[in-house]
């Protein structure tokens, strides 16, 4: 069995500065971090690899800086690290990103179980897991809060409505994980040493060979603009807060809301 975990480097959202007058977005001062849901995916993937005695590969698409999060994954237990990068991949939408990841997965001869974050804090489109599954002809268990290996394949739980759904999937399967699945435990000394020594394999388009047509993003951002303000509602007149509270209960009762 071969297991893959997909991780992503994201900007620290609070560090991003937006000028409300000029509507310019300044990401230059923003720090970089591993996407939290991706870290939970690493947590699940490491547990699966241990349980199955299977090799674990961590893969990320991004610039040089994302080797940091790949090495972190090595410290947690990933044995093989792959970084995908090419100028032609810059600004890829979710469709193009999924195609590039599929090419890298095919090149490795495929994986039995692929983990990824359910939704990243920056793009938050939640597209990669189900898109990859459709492209690979694999099953998809998405937004799961926990997962485990079974004799037939995998079982997972998903938080929904008033409880948890129990889902099962046959292998090959893509599992997208929410932050409910927890973070990996702090790495051991052995893990930290492994992380330092780990070799990151870099794949670019000369290796993956996607065509210009395949790399053309179909969705384009045409503009950014501030949401428009709406008109203010009625103001409840009252001498003080206590009177306002009583009046509010009367008003809501009268309107049959309570």
């Amino acid at each position, binding site marked *: 069995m071969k297991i893959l975990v997909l991780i992503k480097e994201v900007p620290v959202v609070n560090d991003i500065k937006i000028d409300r007058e000029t509507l310019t977005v300044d990401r230059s001062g923003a720090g970089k971090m591993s996407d939290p849901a991706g870290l939970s995916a690493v947590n699940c993937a490491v547990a699966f690899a241990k349980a199955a005695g299977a090799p674990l590969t961590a893969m990320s698409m991004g610039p040089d800086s994302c080797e940091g999060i790949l090495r972190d994954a090595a410290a947690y237990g990933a044995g093989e690290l792959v970084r995908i990068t090419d100028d032609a991949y810059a600004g890829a939408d979710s*469709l193009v990103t999924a195609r590039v990841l599929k090419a890298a997965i095919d090149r490795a001869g495929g994986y039995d179980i692929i983990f990824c974050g359910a939704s990243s804090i920056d793009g938050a489109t939640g597209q990669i897991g189900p898109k990859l599954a459709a492209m690979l002809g*694999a099953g998809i268990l998405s937004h799961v809060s926990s997962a485990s290996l079974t004799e037939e394949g995998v*079982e997972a739980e998903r938080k929904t409505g008033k409880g948890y759904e129990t889902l099962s999937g046959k292998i090959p399967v893509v599992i997208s994980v929410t932050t409910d699945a927890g973070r990996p435990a702090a790495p051991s000394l052995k893990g930290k040493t492994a992380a330092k020594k780990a070799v990151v394999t870099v794949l670019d388009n000369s290796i993956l060979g996607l065509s210009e047509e395949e790399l053309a993003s179909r969705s384009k951002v045409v503009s950014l603009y501030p*949401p428009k303000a709406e*008109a203010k509602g009625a*103001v409840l007149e009252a001498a003080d807060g206590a009177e306002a509270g009583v009046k*509010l209960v009367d008003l809501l009762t009268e309107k049959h809301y309570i």
Partner: protein
Amino acid sequence: MNNIWVIFELTEGKPSRASLEIMGKAAALASEAGCAAEAVVIGEDTGIAAEQAAAYGASKVYAVDRASVLERDSIVVEKLSGKYAPGVILIGSTAYGRDLAAAVSARLGAGIASECTDIECREDGVHFIRPSYDGLLNTDIVIEGEPKIGTFRRGIFKLGEPDTAASAEIVKEDPDVPDSVMLTSLLGFTPDDDVAKADIENADIIIAGGNGMGSQESFDRLYELARLVGGSVGASRIAVNNGWISHDHQIGITGKTVTPKLYISFGISGAVPHVNGMKNSEYIVAVNTDPDAPIFKVANQCVVKDLNEVLPAMIEKLKEIKG
């Protein structure tokens, strides 16, 4: 423009609320753009959903009478789209809808704008609007080629009044899909009290608290008010970050989108990310001492008073009424 499709999601034959909300929006868009709004309904029994689709504006319903399974449904939509060439495909952003939309996008090589907050037909075509940078800015997205796929959470569009006299042409479809694609299944469901309490997306009344609550002790008083009116407790992101309540109760872009009949907020300033998650509530009451708090711009009833006086007075008064 080619027709606008809405892919319905059914639970025991009944369409999801998001499906109906989006159907209503699709019908309005179609009449602007001079095309038709149509529904795709997949399920063991599609009768009720087809009727409802018509009541919310579908002129035609493609009915596929077989159990809905995500991987198989994505191939059904792929095949129907190949046959009828819709211009736009709209899907509710639920656990099922998100994945279905992604799979259909992958299969068709079609561009997608997910978790949108609006869609507009302009002279140069369809524009999808989605919040970015934590709601500080809206992103205006255009998609090349057709179909263009968009997903919308429940509550983004208001549910209109159904026209029960309306009827739609029903087209029965049964595209050939290999059984081998059934790769995942639902084994069961386990109710959970904590998860149920956080099921604010289905709540009729929500009492929400923000940073203005000031402390855990003060925040906890919201539960008493919620109990008295039979509501659920929600929160702004800051309240969650303060550790007063779990993330499952967070309302806004990075939390849940809610549409209760009554929404009462205490000490929430109403930053854009939060407002995006609750502005389609039927009746909104906001309590905040700052008269310029942005929450008042979406509130039906603004209470510019100290919540520490308002909240206890409401609880007292309700106890008096309920005896």
